[in-house]
Structures are given as structure tokens and as C-alpha cells.
């Protein structure tokens, strides 16, 4: 392999990655499989792809094209050269507004493409749940579809042309031809002629069998799309590439159909007592021609209503339903759509199908419903302790009429194996994703998975469904192809594959000639390693450090390029290694011994965490709430233990103490000196503080000194005994005294008596720089001091969000006395969260005043991470005339 990589390096001007870590980062997708690739190429342009393919072919190395890597079935996993189109081959090449078409490079993210098209009122319509990071190339590869497929169909319905590169180096543009044109072209000696000729030959010979064996459901995603060629004489082989999962050719350019954006939308949300009632109602709902029908099952509903982040949005749910459907309507206008929604609600009530069916027409109301659908699913996927909702039977598409019985039977199959299952998605087209909870590190559960798969497969056949309805075959469903389609069709699949890729180099083992579906499970490495990695944090909720890492299932929300904030380092560099998923995979490599004996302290792991900002955006936005900031602390501490901490980290971690010395009388001197050039050089050299940064200035009078001078003896007794403690943080004490004073004034103006809580440092600087052991020791004292207030029933309020998150979230999981940690965590509040809560309880009387007219709020990342970033706006909204 060395010669291969050397050849790549000498011929390509783009990134060629073959180190252990990079290969580990590309060994998985969002499915259950893990195989280390040979190497990874990140092409800048077509020339790089061409050269890489040529070299791989010469060395006989297989090739896997890759987009966002969000496939659920191991489509992009294999021992091959991985070509990652997502980082740099992501341009829009041309837009033809009149013809409603667009030509793109395959690496463009679906939502980014649509953001560019929106001003023209157009969009590329297929909408998989992963649209914020799925690439057009990957969507074509998997023939993706989504929530509104009942209107828009699948990606295959929108591909106009693909300029493809075959493994042999030939390039062919596949597009639609009339039968005459097809016949003219379908002749050797050109490669295109040969493919067109033989494909038609083979297909026509098996036409009846295709009609017979391809399931008649709208959502069929397994195998090759041969059914696209039976009832038409206009043939387009780009439609064969759609859904071919990179097994036939690489796409270099893709031309797509565009649809006008809907002008009006509205939702109707019928409530049901049980999931089975909801599913039974789908068929009648479809008479009303909705654009989407999505299921919320009882588990999602309960979780969404109790979770702090989703509860405020889940208010559209009335009473205690056991299930609900989200039914969306398009219309000429919102009013038109609303009329359709109301007419459905009326019919359901009239026929006694369901009594409660609220309608939402406003944008914000609709968004709240979709948000609950999305994040509620995340909550379910995160639940289950060591067991995870495993995708393997999730993708069956069943004729809608048979859906109720099918779901009953599948749930019974799972229950017989002692497994509960999560249930969600597209009721409209009979694709309800069923994910049984299993722990695949446990061999007995792997056996259970096999039993469930086999029984479910039979059910799908019995009901005339499709084994794959949306996510494709990958390593998880390909092994069933022959049984599903029968010998003749399977042979035809083989011939198709051979036509395009006679050497078998393109993504081998997918669709045809696949290994058994329980090989190469990603949990295998951990089962083998069979150990528990020590950690500084407790990870109680996650079931230990190893499970906390395993929670990352690769869905790649951290690769979203817009919306939310996760993950800022990935957005800046677009490198997999700088995404949260990259960090989770790097850690997995470390704990399974792939990064050397002391992998947890390795250079590789340090590299993966170097650009992590510890912003904790992942803590709230990742569907399973991984907390990479904690992981970064774990890595840094081990690193310090092995190599000694760098001086710069020590200095920064000691800053709170230094600040205590520098503020007050010494401040004028220090402030003057620290800005001089020699001081900046020293600070840059030893403390690693960039000389271009302006430095914060120390206060000439500390907050507590000022407080005592100006306010002592003014201890305003609180109204009705209201008392709070204000946590004196390093910043208000030594730098920004005005904040401390303002906080006291604010609290007093709401009738609170304010006591200062001088409890020491929250330990944020130590925590961020990997001094977890010291932080635990010192933090124990801080927590002990705060506990005194809390035991007296006095809430502790914190102005600095980084300090609050340390006290509420990090220290409690770090100190040895977990009990006192949790009790303190429950009594410490972000100051705005505390006020918002009291306001909601009606404890704070207005009028509220402000000297400002308009405010722009930047919420601290840790504030967002722990929920309730809206508290501030909520409070400020009570100030008359203030715009936020």
C-alpha cells in the first residue's frame, strides 16, 4: 500500500490522508459498520479525482466516493480509497431559471444549494432529514427522499443528467434520450455505445420479471432502479446511477430538476389514543392530498413534553395523546392551505376518527411542530442507556393499507426478543422507521438482531413491501438482495454492475456480492477490547465514558453548514477531524487501542481536539447531546500527565489568582505595562496569548471593595424575605466591576436582598485547559462554600455564563462527592434563568425599565448549551418599547 499512497502523493496536488487517525475518521458513516479504508483523498477539482481513480485502478485498490457520510447502512464503509467530495468539490456550476434546472458539483450540501436557489423561488425538492449536511452526490448515490416525498418523489425523479467517471477512466454524460436517439447511440465501439446497447438488451429480456418482482410501493430504494425503464421509451441512465451507491461510477457533475417553492403551507395535527389508531387513520388522510404525514409516537410525545428545551414548543399537543400525526398541506396561499387543513380536521371529527386536531397556519407555529418532530426524535435516539435504537429493519416500505397490521407484527417480533423499539417518520408513504433498542457490544443482542431481521424480512415479503424504502442497501441490506428480488433479477444486477465496472473496483460489497449483514460491526472493536476506560468526569447519565463516546452514531448534525451553531470548528475548516463526529471517532480509535498504547494522550488525539472551542454547542445541538468540551478536558489532562503541562496553559489556568493580585491598587501599573511591546512578546511567548489581541484591563478598585465602600449598611431587607446570593466571579471582581454593581442594583430593584457569595473560583479556566484533577480538588471547596447558601434555601445567582456552566454542569460530574455536587447544581442559576423563572411564576411585578431602546443579544455558547437561551429576551420583552 505504501507504493499506492506514494503514487497518489506524487500525482495529486490535493490532500492525501493515510495516517491511522485520518483513516479511523473515515471508517464509519451513520450506520452500524466500521472498516478502515486504505487512504482518503480530498480532491480540489476533477483532475484530482481522475488522477486518483487512475492510480487506484492501476493498483487494483477499490474506490468509494463519499459525500457527507451520513448513510445509515455502511454505504461509504470499506477497505478502499475514499474520495471525499464534500470539502472542496461543492460549487454550483450554472442555474437555468427558465428551464428550472441547475448543474452542480457532487459535494454541495442540499440546504446550501437551496439557500442559493431560494431568491429565485426554486428548490431541489427531495428533503431527507439530513438535508443540512447531505451532499447532492450522496443523495443521488442513495436515491434519497424525505418528508414530502408524497409530492416530490425521490431524488431519481429529479436527476436530469450525470457526468460520470468510470473506474476505467472513461467519462460519459448520461441523460435522457428518446428511443430513436437511444438506438442511434447504442452501438459499440464507444464505451457509451456498449453500455447503452447491452443494458437495453439485458433489460428487455427480463422486463416481465422486473414488473413481477419490483414491489409496487412508491418508496423503493433497494437494488438498481431497473423499474425506471419498463414503462417508458425515454431512457435516462442517470436514473440508473441514482441509488447505485457508488457501485457503478463516480459523479463529477450532476444536473437537477428544480421545483417552485410552495406558496402556502399549513399543518393539521390529529391526536390519537394509540399509535395503531394513528396509523389506521393514514389511509383516509391521504384522500385529502397532504404534502406530508409524519408520526409522533407516545414515547416521542412524552419526552418532548418533559424535556426543557422542547417543552415550550410542544404546546400544540393537547391533553394526553398516545400518538399524533403531523399532516402538512400546500396551497396557493397560507389561507388556502389552512382551508385544506381545517377540512381534514372536520372530516376526522365527523367520522369519529379523532376529536382533537389542532391547525397551525403561522410560520412560528409550524416551525415549533417540526422542531418537536426533529428534536423529539433525537431524545428518543439518545434514550435507552447502554442499548441503542439500531437501524437495520428501519427502512421497510409497506403499502399504506397494510401498514397497521405490519407495524403490530413487527413490534411483536421485537417484543419477543425482549426489545422495545422507537418508531418514527413517514406514515404518508408507508415508511415508518422501526429501530429496536439493542446493545451490539453484547453478543446475545447481535443474535437477537439477526432473529428480528429474519422475521421482519419475511413480514415485508408477506405484505408486498420493499426491504429498503429510503436509506438504501449498504452493508446492512445488500446481503438480502438475492432473496428479495430472486435469481433472475439478481443476475441482471450483476450484469449491470459488470457493464459499468468489470474489474469490480467501485464500492464492492454493496448491492450485490455482499458479506453477511452482521460482519464488520462497529461495536466489534469495543467488544474485543472489552475494557472500561478511566475518566475524570463521571458520565453517570451516559453509562460511563466508553458509552458516552459510543453515543455518537455518526448522523453528522455536527457537519451542518448552516442553522444552529454546532460545530464552529468544522464550519471554519470543513475538515472531518474538526467536527464533533471526528472527535468522537478519534476517541473511539484511542479507547480501542488503535492510536497506540497510550492513545488517550497521543499526538493524534490532541490534533483532533486542538481546534475544539469547548463551546458545548454539541451538548445541546447534537441529537444525542455528546459533550466534546468534557472530552477535550480528559484528553488534555492525560496529555499534561504524560508530557507535563505547557507553561502557557499553566499561566492561563492561574489567571484568576493573578487577576486577584493585579486588580486594585496595582492595576494602573499593570494595565500600562501589559500593553507594551516587550510585555506582549513575553505573554505571547510564554502564555501563548496572541499579541494581536487587546488585553482586558484590570479594575483599579475591586468589586467587593467598591461594594463595601458604597453600599455597606444599605442591606436592603428583601421584600417578603426574598434573599439571593450573588456569586462573585473573577471578572466582575477584577475587571468589569460595573457588572457586579449592576447585578446588585437589578436584584434590589426587584425586591431581593443580595448577599455576596465569595466562594472562590468556579474552575472554568482549569477545566478548559485540562487541569481536571486540580479543578476537582479546588472546585470541591467552592462547591462546599456555595452549599452553605443553598442549604439555607438561598439561591446562588451567577452573571458569567462560563462560571455558571462550570458550577451547574461540569464540577458536579467532576468532584468526588457527587451528591453535594448535584444539590449545589440544583441551587445555582444563570441570573437571567432565575429571573425568568420567577417572572413566569408571577413573582416579579412590573413595570420593568430600561435605559436602552434597542438591543441585539449575543447568547453565550454555554448558556445555549444548557437550554433557555430565550430567557433573556423573554424578560426584556416586558420592558415597554424595548426592541430586542
Amino acid at each position, binding site marked *: 500500500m505504501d507504493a499506492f499512497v506514494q503514487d497518489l502523493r506524487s500525482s495529486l496536488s490535493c490532500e492525501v490522508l493515510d495516517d491511522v487517525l485520518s483513516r479511523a475518521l473515515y471508517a464509519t458513516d451513520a450506520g452500524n459498520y466500521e472498516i478502515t479504508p486504505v487512504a482518503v483523498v480530498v480532491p480540489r477539482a476533477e483532475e484530482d479525482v481522475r488522477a486518483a481513480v487512475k492510480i487506484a485502478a492501476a493498483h487494483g485498490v477499490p474506490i468509494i466516493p463519499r459525500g457527507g457520510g451520513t448513510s445509515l447502512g455502511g454505504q461509504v464503509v470499506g477497505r478502499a480509497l475514499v474520495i471525499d467530495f464534500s470539502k472542496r468539490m461543492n460549487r454550483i456550476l450554472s442555474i437555468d431559471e427558465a428551464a428550472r434546472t441547475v448543474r452542480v458539483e457532487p459535494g454541495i450540501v442540499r440546504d446550501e444549494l437551496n439557500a442559493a436557489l431560494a431568491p429565485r423561488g426554486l428548490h431541489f425538492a427531495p428533503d431527507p432529514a439530513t438535508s443540512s449536511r447531505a451532499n447532492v452526490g450522496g443523495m443521488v448515490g442513495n436515491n434519497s427522499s424525505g418528508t414530502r416525498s408524497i409530492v416530490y418523489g425521490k431524488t431519481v425523479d429529479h436527476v436530469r443528467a450525470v457526468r460520470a467517471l468510470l473506474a476505467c477512466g472513461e467519462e460519459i454524460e448520461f441523460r435522457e434520450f428518446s428511443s430513436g436517439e437511444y438506438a442511434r447511440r447504442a452501438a459499440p465501439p464507444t464505451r457509451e455505445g456498449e453500455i447503452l446497447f447491452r443494458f437495453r438488451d439485458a433489460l428487455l429480456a427480463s422486463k416481465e420479471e422486473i414488473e413481477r418482482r419490483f414491489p409496487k410501493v412508491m418508496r423503493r430504494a433497494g437494488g438498481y432502479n431497473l423499474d425506471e425503464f419498463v414503462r417508458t421509451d425515454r431512457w435516462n441512465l442517470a436514473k440508473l446511477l441514482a441509488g447505485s451507491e457508488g457501485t457503478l461510477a463516480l459523479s463529477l457533475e450532476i444536473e437537477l430538476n428544480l421545483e417552485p417553492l410552495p406558496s402556502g403551507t399549513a399543518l393539521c395535527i390529529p391526536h390519537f389514543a394509540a399509535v395503531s389508531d394513528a396509523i389506521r387513520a393514514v389511509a383516509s388522510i391521504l384522500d385529502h392530498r397532504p404534502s406530508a404525514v409524519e408520526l409522533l409516537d407516545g414515547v416521542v410525545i412524552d419526552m418532548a413534553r418533559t424535556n426543557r428545551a422542547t417543552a415550550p414548543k410542544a404546546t400544540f399537543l393537547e391533553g394526553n395523546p398516545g400518538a399524533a400525526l403531523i399532516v402538512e398541506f400546500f396551497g396557493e396561499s397560507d389561507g388556502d392551505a389552512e382551508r385544506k387543513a381545517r377540512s381534514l380536521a372536520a372530516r376526522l371529527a365527523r367520522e369519529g376518527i379523532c376529536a382533537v386536531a389542532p391547525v397551525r397556519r403561522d410560520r412560528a407555529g409550524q416551525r415549533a411542530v417540526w422542531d418537536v418532530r426533529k428534536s423529539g426524535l433525537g431524545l428518543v435516539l439518545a434514550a435507552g442507556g447502554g442499548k441503542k435504537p439500531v437501524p437495520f429493519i428501519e427502512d421497510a416500505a409497506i403499502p399504506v393499507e397494510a401498514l397497521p397490521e405490519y407495524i403490530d407484527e413487527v413490534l411483536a417480533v421485537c417484543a419477543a426478543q425482549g426489545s422495545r423499539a422507537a418508531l418514527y417518520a413517514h406514515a404518508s408513504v408507508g415508511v415508518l422507521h422501526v429501530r429496536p433498542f439493542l446493545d451490539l457490544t453484547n453478543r446475545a443482542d447481535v443474535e437477537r438482531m439477526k432473529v428480528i431481521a429474519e422475521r421482519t424480512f419475511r413480514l415485508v415479503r408477506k405484505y408486498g413491501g420493499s426491504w429498503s424504502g429510503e436509506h438504501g442497501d449498504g452493508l446492512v441490506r445488500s446481503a438480502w438482495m438475492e432473496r428479495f428480488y430472486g435469481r433472475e433479477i439478481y443476475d441482471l444486477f450483476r450484469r449491470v454492475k459488470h457493464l459499468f465496472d468489470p474489474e469490480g473496483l467501485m464500492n464492492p460489497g454493496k448491492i450485490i456480492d455482499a458479506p453477511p449483514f452482521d460482519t464488520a460491526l462497529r461495536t466489534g472493536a469495543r467488544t474485543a477490547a472489552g475494557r472500561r476506560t478511566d475518566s475524570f468526569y463521571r458520565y453517570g447519565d451516559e453509562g460511563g465514558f466508553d458509552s458516552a463516546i459510543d453515543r455518537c452514531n455518526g448522523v453528522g448534525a455536527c457537519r451542518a453548514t448552516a442553522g444552529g451553531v454546532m460545530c464552529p470548528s468544522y464550519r*471554519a475548516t470543513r475538515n472531518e477531524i474538526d467536527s464533533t463526529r471526528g472527535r468522537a471517532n478519534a476517541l473511539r480509535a484511542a479507547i480501542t487501542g488503535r492510536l497506540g498504547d497510550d492513545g488517550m494522550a497521543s499526538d493524534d488525539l490532541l490534533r483532533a481536539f486542538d481546534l475544539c*472551542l469547548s463551546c458545548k454547542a454539541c451538548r445541546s445541538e447534537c441529537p444525542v447531546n455528546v459533550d466534546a468540551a468534557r472530552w477535550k478536558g480528559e484528553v488534555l489532562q492525560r496529555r499534561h500527565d504524560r508530557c507535563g503541562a505547557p507553561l502557557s496553559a499553566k499561566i492561563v489556568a492561574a489567571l484568576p489568582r493573578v487577576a486577584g493580585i493585579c486588580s486594585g491598587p496595582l492595576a494602573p501599573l499593570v494595565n500600562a505595562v501589559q500593553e507594551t511591546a516587550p510585555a506582549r512578546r513575553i505573554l505571547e511567548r510564554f502564555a501563548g496569548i496572541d499579541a494581536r489581541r487587546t488585553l482586558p484591563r484590570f479594575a483599579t478598585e475591586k468589586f467587593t471593595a467598591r461594594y463595601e465602600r458604597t453600599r455597606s449598611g444599605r442591606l436592603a431587607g428583601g421584600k417578603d424575605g426574598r434573599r439571593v446570593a450573588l456569586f462573585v466571579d473573577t471578572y466582575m471582581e477584577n*475587571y468589569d466591576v460595573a457588572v457586579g454593581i449592576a447585578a446588585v442594583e437589578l436584584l434590589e*430593584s426587584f*425586591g431581593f436582598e443580595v448577599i455576596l457569595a465569595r466562594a472562590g473560583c468556579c474552575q472554568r479556566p482549569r477545566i478548559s485547559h485540562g487541569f481536571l484533577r486540580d479543578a476537582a480538588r479546588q472546585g470541591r471547596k467552592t462547591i462546599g462554600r456555595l452549599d452553605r447558601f443553598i442549604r439555607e434555601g438561598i439561591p446562588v445567582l451567577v452573571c458569567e*455564563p462560563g462560571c455558571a456552566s462550570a458550577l451547574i454542569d461540569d464540577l458536579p460530574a467532576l468532584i468526588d462527592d457527587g451528591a453535594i455536587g448535584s444539590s449545589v447544581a440544583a441551587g445555582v442559576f444563570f441570573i437571567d434563568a432565575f429571573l425568568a423563572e420567577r417572572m413566569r411564576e408571577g413573582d416579579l411585578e412590573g413595570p420593568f425599565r430600561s435605559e436602552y431602546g434597542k438591543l*441585539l443579544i449575543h447568547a453565550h455558547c454555554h*448558556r445555549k448549551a444548557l437550554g433557555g437561551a430565550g430567557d*433573556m429576551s423573554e424578560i426584556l420583552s416586558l420592558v415597554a418599547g424595548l426592541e430586542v
Partner: protein
Amino acid sequence: MAGSFGYEKDHYDLSLAVGEDRLFPAVRSRAVGTAVVACGFSCRHQIAHATGVRPVHFVETIRGCQ
């Protein structure tokens, strides 16, 4: 951005890039007379560094009636 991360020598550029993604442009293009609220000390400081605008803490923006 992001606390002390933004002060670190090797991370200066990334931190500015993260800020430029949305925050700094939003601060610069805010309507006249709009104050910027940021509760984190280093958020305030880094916004000031990059945009010249001095943000305030939330507690400085509101008072009750007593």
C-alpha cells in the same frame, strides 16, 4: 470567540473566523441606537476587539420598579 480559546496564539485566526461567520457582521450591521448584549466577559471583550462596539451585560439593561 469561546472564552480563553480566542486569546490563544494558535487559535486567533480560527476564533476571528468563527466570529465573522455571523456574530460580527450582525453587530456591525445592527440598526442605529442598538446596544449589544453579551453576558460572557470574553465575549464582550472579543466583540469589542473585532468590531469596536462595547457590549453590555444583560444585568445592565433592565431594572425593576422598587
